[in-house]
C-alpha cells in the first residue's frame, strides 16, 4: 500500500519535471528562432545589430517598422502565431525581452 503511494508520488514529480523541461525547451527554441530571424533580417536589410540582450530597446536594434513587420510575418509562418494581432489590447513590446515573451506567452 505504502509502496504504491510512493510510486505515484515519484511519478508525479517526474511528470511535473518533464513538463517543466519541455516548456523550457520550447521557450528556448522560440527565443532562438526569434533571434535567428532577427539576425537574418538584419543581414538582408544591412542593419548592424548591437548585442541582443533582453533589456535592449527595440528602437536600439536599428530596425525600422518595415523590418519589424517582416519579422512578425516570418515568425507567424514559422511559429504559427502572431501575438500582436491575436489580442486587441496587446501593446507593442519595448524591449527584446518583451518581444520574446509576447511569443512565449501565447498558448500554441
Amino acid at each position, binding site marked *: 500500500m505504502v509502496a504504491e503511494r510512493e510510486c505515484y508520488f515519484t511519478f508525479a514529480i517526474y511528470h511535473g519535471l518533464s513538463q517543466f523541461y519541455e516548456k523550457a525547451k520550447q521557450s528556448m527554441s522560440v527565443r532562438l528562432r526569434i533571434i535567428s530571424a532577427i539576425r537574418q533580417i538584419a543581414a538582408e536589410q544591412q542593419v548592424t545589430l548591437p548585442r541582443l540582450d533582453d533589456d535592449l530597446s527595440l528602437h536600439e536594434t536599428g530596425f525600422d*517598422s*518595415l523590418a519589424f513587420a517582416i519579422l512578425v510575418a516570418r515568425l507567424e509562418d514559422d511559429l504559427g502565431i502572431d501575438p500582436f494581432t491575436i489580442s486587441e489590447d496587446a501593446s*507593442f513590446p519595448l524591449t527584446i525581452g518583451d518581444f520574446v515573451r509576447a511569443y512565449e506567452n501565447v498558448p500554441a
Partner: protein
Amino acid sequence: MSPREIFALREYLDPNLKGRTLSNPRRVISLTDIAGETCLKGRLGELSGRSVLLAVGGQLLAALAMLEIDGVARRMLLCPPDLNADHIQALLEDAEIDAVVTDQPARWVASGIGLVVAADEMLQPASRAPTERATEWLMLTSGTSGLPKIVGHSLEGLTGAIVADGPARGAPPVWATFYDIRRYGGLQIFLRAIVGGGSMVLSEPEEPIADHVARLQENAVTHISGTPSHWRKLLMSGAASGFSPRYVRLSGEIADQAVLDGLRRAFPSASIGHAYASTEAGVGFAVNDGLEGFPAALIGESRDGVEMKVVDGSLRIRSRRAAHAYVGRQAAALTDQAGFVDTGDMVELRGDRYHFVGRRGGIINIGGLKVHPEEIEAVINRHAEVRMSRARSRRSPITGAIVVADVILADGADKDRRDQIRDRILADCRASLAPHKVPAMIKFVTALDVTTAGKLARHDA
C-alpha cells in the same frame, strides 16, 4: 445609311471559300456550309429588332449564334460563361433585353423575358437571311468584383484593327485563342478568323493543356493569342514542343520581358508580339519588336484612328475602335469630354519606351506607400528559374500591410537551390526596387489561380 453599306458577320461567310472550319473537342463545323444553315431552328426572324441576351454554355454554339444574329437583332449581349447569377437581373434591365437565345430554354421560361429562342449545335438548313441593320454588340467588363459594366460596340469598331492590319499573307490562317470568345480578347480572334477568311479552333474550359495543344497541332493552328498568364501556363506544362504557330500574340495583362523571351525560345520561328486592348478602349496598338513596353513615339500621334496620351500616369485612348458607351440606367460616361477613354492602366516612361506598371485600382498600400504588384512581379519574373509570380499584400500589425510574393519555379528545385534562388531574387529586388516594394517573404508554390478571363487572380486588388 443605306442597307447596302451595313456589313454584318454573315457577309464574311462565303460559300465559295472552301475548307473553313470552326471546331471544339467534339465537333467540327464547316464555315463554308453554314451560310445556308440555322442554329435557331429557323426562328431568326423573331429576333429582328430585338435586344437579345446570348446565354449559351459553350463557345461553339455562341459563335454560331453570333454569326446568325448579327445584322438582324437590335443589340446582342454576349454572356460570358462565368456570369454571376445575382447580376443577371440588373444586366437584363440595363440592356433592355427582350429576347434570350439559350441552349437551356426551360431555365428562362420564368425569367420574365417575353421571347425565348432555343439554340442547338445541330444545324438545320435555312434560307440565307438578309442583313437588316447594324447590330449593337454588348460585352461585359471582366472586373472581378461587383456588377460588371455593359460596354457597347459596333461591328465596325470591333473589326477596325483587323481591317487596318489587312489580310494575313499566305495560306488562310487557322486561328486559336486561350480566351473565351465572349471576352474582348477572344472575340477579336473569332472576328479575325471570320473576317479574314480563316478557320478557328476554340478553347474548352477544364481541358488539360496537353490535350488542348494536341488539338492545336492536329488542326495546324497558325495564329494564336492569350494572356501572359495563359502563355506561362503553356510554357510550364512542357506541352509546347512540337507546336509551331507562325504568329503568337499576348494581350490582357502586362507582357514582361521574361514571358516574351520564353515564347521566343519556345517558338523561334514565330512572329511574337503583344497587343494593347481593353473592352472599353478597343484595340490600341501592337508591339512586334520583342521588347516589353511600347515606343514613346506611339504617344501623341494618331495612327489608324487611334490617338494616345498619358495623363496622371494613366494611358488615355481616343479611338474609332473604342466602345461607344457604357449601357444602362446609371451608366457613367465612357470617355472624357474630348473623347478619351481613361484605361486605368498606369505607365512609366523609361528612356524612349513606356512600360506598364499596373492597374490604378490594383495598387496595394504598404504603410501609406503605393505599390503596383506587377512592378515587383516583373523583377521576379526576369530570373531564368522563375516561370510565374504573384506579389500581394499581407496584413501586418506593424505597417498595416507588407508585400509578399508567391513564385512558381520553372523546374522543380531542391531545398538548397530554392534557398539560393530566393536569395538571388531578393538581392535583385533590393537592387531594383524601393525598400517597401521588396517582398518580405517569398513562398515557392506549384500553382497560382488564373481567372476565367485568363488573368492572374488578385484577391487583394
